[in-house]
């Protein structure tokens, strides 16, 4: 077991540590596994006392974590302590040196995303790259932040029947032979999105006669989810990204109810994140491991974008359908697309002003 862990630790970029430290982490990880993982403030006082019996420091950190305030409102010193505590705990729990960044928002930046639905082939590389990057629960259940919908092309039906009829046909008041158009029998077409699937299983993509529509958090300028949160655990950061303080969320799920894009995911149970698949480069508001009973969602990979890197979904896209950039910079990819392509936003009637744009390239 420890051999495996060592291998993983070696290949993990940016991790430099002595063999002794590594062994210490592995030992700690074993202990925490025995305690059914004191992940987060796992409530139950019994867990706290069990932890106290084995490792007083861990129990202490569990209680401190439970008592911690809203991260944004913490003092710099409290923030530092909080980050140290989390790094220590995650490193022990996952058996590898984990960093929790709290890199601040960038100056003068408003992030925007553009996606070419003409190019998208529905391969879902973005979905899986996202899961890997952002430390989502891998099984029971697998949590995915991006949903790709498979929509049939030309999904319309036409019929020559009853072309000249409508209902109710024989009216007592006389129908005068005039068709009541509002009540035609077979409306031409039907619903173009009828039969759309999000859980398709295809051997090769793109499938003939289908096109694809990936949806993730739209990072609204007026996010309804932020408006309804009773404790301000979710908020919009100065770069226009909607974030969640996982340690402040009370799990009421009002945000999930408010979101017109179905972008939010709830940790109904304890997330299952195997140590060997855990991404140790994390951000406090981004991909650090979550706990049971809190909400999570796409952050445009805040752990990357705050360091001027692209989101993982963009890097994974094999056809270059995804573009990301600063909306305030006229020279950015996104701004150029907005200026030159045929662009639309999803469900604009909800007045949410998404910063996620779809275009036809």
């Amino acid at each position, binding site marked *: 077991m420890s051999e495996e862990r060592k291998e993983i630790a070696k290949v993990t970029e940016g991790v430099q540590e002595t063999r002794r430290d590594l062994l210490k982490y592995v030992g700690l990880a074993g202990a925490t596994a025995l305690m059914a993982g004191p992940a987060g403030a796992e409530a139950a006082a019994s867990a706290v006392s069990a932890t106290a019996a084995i490792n007083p420091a861990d129990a202490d950190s569990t209680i401190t974590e*439970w008592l911690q305030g809203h991260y944004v409102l913490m003092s710099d010193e409290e923030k530092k302590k909080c980050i140290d505590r989390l790094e220590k705990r995650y490193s022990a729990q996952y058996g590898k040196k984990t960093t929790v960044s709290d890199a601040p928002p960038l100056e003068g930046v408003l992030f925007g995303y553009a996606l070419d639905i003409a190019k998208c082939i529905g391969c879902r590389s973005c979905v899986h790259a996202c899961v890997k990057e952002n430390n989502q629960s891998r099984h029971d259940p697998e949590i995915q932040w991006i949903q790709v919908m498979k929509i049939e092309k030309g999904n319309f039906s036409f019929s020559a029947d009853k072309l000249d009829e409508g209902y109710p046909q024989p009216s007592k008041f006389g129908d005068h032979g005039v068709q009541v158009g509002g009540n035609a029998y077979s409306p031409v077409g039907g619903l173009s999105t009828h039969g759309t699937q999000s859980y398709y299983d295809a051997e090769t993509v793109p499938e003939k006669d289908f096109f694809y529509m990936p949806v993730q958090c739209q990072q609204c300028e007026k996010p309804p989810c932020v408006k309804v949160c009773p404790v301000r655990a979710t908020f919009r950061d100065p770069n226009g990204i909607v974030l969640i303080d996982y340690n*402040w969320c009370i799990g009421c799920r009002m945000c999930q109810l408010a979101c017109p894009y179905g972008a939010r995911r709830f940790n109904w149970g304890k997330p299952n994140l195997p140590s060997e698949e855990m991404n140790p480069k994390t951000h406090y508001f981004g991909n650090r491991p979550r706990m049971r009973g809190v909400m999570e969602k796409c952050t445009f990979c805040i752990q990357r974008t705050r360091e001027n890197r692209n989101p993982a979904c963009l890097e994974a896209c094999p056809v270059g359908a995804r573009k990301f950039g600063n909306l305030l910079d006229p020279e950015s990819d996104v701004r150029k697309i907005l200026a030159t392509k045929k662009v639309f936003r999803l469900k604009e009637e909800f007045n949410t002003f998404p910063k996620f744009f779809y275009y036809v390239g």
Partner: protein
Amino acid sequence: MEKMLSFALDFGSFAIKGGAKYYAWLLFLLFFVLVGSYTAYIQLTEGLIVTGATDQISWELFIANFIFTAHVAAAAVLVVAPGYMYKRKDFKEIAVLGEIIAMCFVATGILFILFHMGRPDRLWHLLPGIGVFNIPNSMLVFDVIVLNVYLFLNVVAVFYLLYKKYIGSETLGKWYTPWIYLAIAWGPLIHICTSFVLSSNARMFSWATAVLPFAFLSMAGASGPALIILIFLLVRKYTKLQIGDSVIDLLTQMIVWSLGILMLVLGAEFFTALYSSAEHAASLKFNMFGHNGLDMYVSSFWIIMALIVGSFFVLLIPAVRKSYNFLLPLVCLEIFLVILVEKPLILVFPAFSPSPFGEYTEYYPTLVEYFNVMLVWAIGFIALTLVTKGAIGILTGEVKYAKASASR
């Protein structure tokens, strides 16, 4: 201080005394508390994954039941209001029973919300002073505030009055009547607030309607008095407290009126949605007719609608309204249950279909969830039973301070 202690002791000892039926009822409830304690432990340790809720249908039976408890809690003012606002003596004497119902049901509702929370251990984030409120944006914050204030108003109103009666004091504080008036106004307020928690979500097509508070209040006006009539009929049959027919009759009138208004509200809602039959009608059509073979809620929709309309017409018959021992309690029980099951089967679960991207889903509650619901109801009804019993002892004069000291 000594008086208060003796109040608590006498009140408590009278409340737990009763006949075989009384104990059978309490034991019945206790069974659900015992089983429920275990299932609650499962939910607290495993998380909400043990309920039927998913990312598609993220509200479970708990919140559906909470809305119902808010119905009854709000409607309890209908016992208080005639006594204080219309100077009806027959109502004023038993107004405290209405306040007890309000108190117990709002507490039950708060308990349901605790079960709905993903992190009940972090509830302190909502405490004034140490928490962070999202005012004025979050409707849930307002709901939390009005529910707790309503609980506080009623706890004070109930126990102050009972204590005064217990020590034989005739004069109540000058603040008491305004306090009651505030509590009366607060009843509808909790319900309007609760409806705003639902109707503020633009993407929930069947909730984002201006008639929702009216639907809630009229359902409250039907289900609340239905339960209150049942309780009053039991009280006057098994205890020395006299509750006149005039009280029952007025409460029945309230049910009839409420059902009438409810029919109008539902009719208006259905017409508005169905005439244009646009996107906003999708949830309602799923509820009424099903969708591609998913028809779990179809039959219950039509049965519930038929029962609402049917109860209205049945209660128009004077013979039914006067049948205090058979037909009236039967109809009241039916109305109570219909409005109760309307919550999950029409209001909550079908509203989540279609999802934001057009997925249709049915909800399957789990056994753990059922038992947790029963746990909360059992706790609520035990509290209601005990407090009502104790209060009746004080109202009838069986429990008195002077008597207690004389017997020593």
